[in-house]
């Protein structure tokens, strides 16, 4: 979010994880690694003397030690007050104000909306088949994104139908056995990278997977990583990758 407002962060937690799972927007090369996202290194943070610390809501971290080091800006996400996309817009604006980049924030909001509208126009010519968005972590389970997820909001804006309509948890997904994918029928299935190579092999070997209606119909597409819990940049990235799939 900070990067998409045109500011290079001094340090982030879990640089390798970001590059594997979030990918875009790209981190600057000289960015320090603060250690794990669950326990960012406070001593290093203290030494780096940042001007502002931003953090996401929901990691169970106590704010007090961070506030001693620098002003803290917390970004609440998935707190149930707004749909994720709308909340991403609100938080972008708030962060823009905090960083003195209100204009950039507004431009980002408009740019993202325009990009999604553009893709919607692009897709309008094609057949509107329902689609399901999944992450595959092991060979027996999938995480399916549905109501309450950022992806759902993007699909709505693209006028696409999510094939997964069953209930989801507070973060907008559910973890299920792959047999539950029978429920989506021959819908298109968008599978997010990265899938660990050995898992991919075992999934391909699975007789259940191979015979699922959506797999048999050849409707499974893999797209590069998108952070499912990201902000506007992730939303735009998802829409773009979806258009290419």
């Amino acid at each position, binding site marked *: 979010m900070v990067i998409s407002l045109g500011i290079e962060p001094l340090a982030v937690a*879990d640089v390798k*994880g970001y590059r*594997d*799972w979030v990918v875009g927007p790209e981190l600057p090369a000289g960015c*320090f*690694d*603060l*250690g*794990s*996202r*669950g*326990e960012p*290194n*406070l*001593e*290093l943070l*203290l*030494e*780096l003397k940042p001007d502002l610390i931003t953090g996401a809501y*929901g*990691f*169970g*971290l*106590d704010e*007090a*030690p961070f506030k*001693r080091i620098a002003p803290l800006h917390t970004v609440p996400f998935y707190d149930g007050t707004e749909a994720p996309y709308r909340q991403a817009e609100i938080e972008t604006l708030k962060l823009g104000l905090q960083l003195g980049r209100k204009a950039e924030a507004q431009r980002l909001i408009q740019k993202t909306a325009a990009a999604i509208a553009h893709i919607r126009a692009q897709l309008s010519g094609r057949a509107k088949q329902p689609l399901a968005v999944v992450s595959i*972590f*092991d*060979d*027996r*389970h999938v995480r399916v994104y549905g109501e309450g997820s950022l992806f759902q909001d993007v699909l709505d804006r693209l006028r696409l139908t999510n094939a997964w309509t069953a*209930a989801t*948890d*507070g*973060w907008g997904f*559910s*973890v*299920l*056995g*792959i*047999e539950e994918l*029978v429920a989506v*029928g021959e819908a298109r299935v968008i599978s997010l990278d990265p899938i*660990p*190579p*050995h*898992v991919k*092999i*075992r*999934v391909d*070997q*699975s*007789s*259940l*997977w191979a*015979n*699922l*209606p959506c797999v*048999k119909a050849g409707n499974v597409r893999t797209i590069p990583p998108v952070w499912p819990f990201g902000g506007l940049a992730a939303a735009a990235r998802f829409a773009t990758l979806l258009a290419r799939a």
Partner: protein
Amino acid sequence: MNIMQSTAGNRARFMGGSWTLVALVSVPAVLAAYLTAAGLLRLLPADMWWQSLGVTDLTDPQQLLYRHAFLPRLAISLLAGAALGLTGTLLQQVLRNPLAEPTTIGTNAGATVALTIATLYAPWMLEQGREWVALAGGALSTLAVLALAQGRSFSPVAIIISGLVVSLTCSSASALLMAANREYSEELFIWQSGSLIQNGDAVVFGFAPWLVVAGIAAFLLLRPLRLLDLSDEGAASLGTKPVVTRLAGMTVAVALSSMVVAAVGVISFVALAAPTLVRLAGARTLRQRMIWAPLAGAALLWLTDRLVQVMPFASEIPAGVATAFLGAPLLFLLLPKLRTIPDRDGAILSSVRRRSGWVYLLPGLVAVALVLCAALVVGRGAAGWHVASAAEHAELLPLRAPRIVVALSAGMMLGVVGTLMQRMTGNPMAAPEVLGISGGASLGILLLFVATSDVNRPAMIAAGLVGALASLAMISQTGRRQALAHDRLLLSGVAVATMASAFSAVMLASGDPRLDTLIAWLSGSTYRATAADAIVAAVTATALLIIVPLTVRWLEILPLGEAASRGLGLGIDRVRIILVLVAVPTTIATLVIGPLSFVGLMAPHLARMLGFQRALPQLFASAMLGGMILVSADWAGRMLIFPWQIPAGLLAALIGGPYFMVLMWKRRR
């Protein structure tokens, strides 16, 4: 008529069929069959069942699910259950140990850590399947356990203690690897909790031959295995080599349980419960147990898996976790009926040197002070190693001091509590972590996590205390029946600890957003320690150190045995006072450093090996050692992979475990 009767009699004898045995297998089996049929009817009409088995119309989703999800799951629950029943029977016979099963002898933990390493760092090894990796890991860790127990002629307690040390080391290693690779661990979380969900029939067809081969091998070994009931000399005189028999039996058991781990993950308790239940139901001979235990195991796992599926929970409860919940209470009910085997060596790690100890406490104090100073002053920064100046300390102290104080206090408390418990029960393996007191405390805290979303420290302390006291009450209940019998105490402790870890596995697999806090706590991280935590921990530790000298006379007497203690005027009620004295500090320590630090087991032994024999010096020495271990672990954890951090509890277990193994190895003669 007569002939028929005698045939029936023969058959009954062959199967070992007493009615209790038949009931033990058939009651859960009938129940499971009913639930299976009910579940199946919802999937596919009954007239299709048979037809669809032969020729499956894979374009019909219902038939696809039937053939490639429902049936494989049903089959694997039966096969895995039978395999675990057989494994447990073999291990218990070979090791002459009623507590032996793949978890207690370290096989599961070894297989798990091998698979974790392979998943994270060498995924190509898993392309052909998990079997060989699991087998290598399981075999290695079992060998380590046996090597450690070898000097004590494989006595039950020696095997359990080595199994515990090896398991704890292995599971700390896997927990550490998973914490460092958080996003990649989702797969491991799910798999570790023993899910029976299948994605086709490949696993079933891969696993079945192993079970058949192992079954045949086990029955070929029946006669020599039976001779192990005799003394080794007796068996040798009948023309068998007990060593060869043991080795063969172990090989079969370890291979089979590693295959279960590879196929479905860790399924706790079935391998322990099935043979135990079968024996209690009247299966006396080995042949009977080898027939009935796999049947009972299969029926139990089948029923568990069906029950899990009809439970009204949003996300899946893995069967491996459910067996722990069902098995642990069962074990408690059965404990009084279990025939205990007298342990031939009480003192597993006796000391050779004898010193009074007081003088040597001084260098200990100096060492503690040095470690504290180093932990406070030396650190790493963006530019490398760095010794903090006084000015910098104004900023660094609020970050470092709470962590160090918490680690020091928790270590001291666990050291003292461990010593108290070992002295009190006369059991060299007694420790808050082993006897399930830490487990009870964490169970209480975990239940609080489930019950409310608003979790604060006082509530956590209260919940942890209730849990710790409850498990203490259960332990003393067990102890009352038969003067603190060693293996029963251990068994009840293992039961509580297993339940706690099963519960945390459920929470980990559920994807709860508070997961990071939970993982940090389970792995013994001091990262979230606040000034308030530090004060609470320090006050409790100080109070404990002040009160404990008052109990010293009791502690000197108690190891002499109950009769002697009574004779010297020490009622068993006084012991209960000590029990409460154990619960409070254990809860506080568990709260701040997690349930798995291992210090409570290690510190007292280290103190004794360093020559602190008498109660009071040993208490203080193990307090110092405990504190020192955790402070060094916390400091090293902050330095080693900077800016990443290794939780202190994990590092203590990871370094302390192997060190403990080396000590056991050196003293094996």
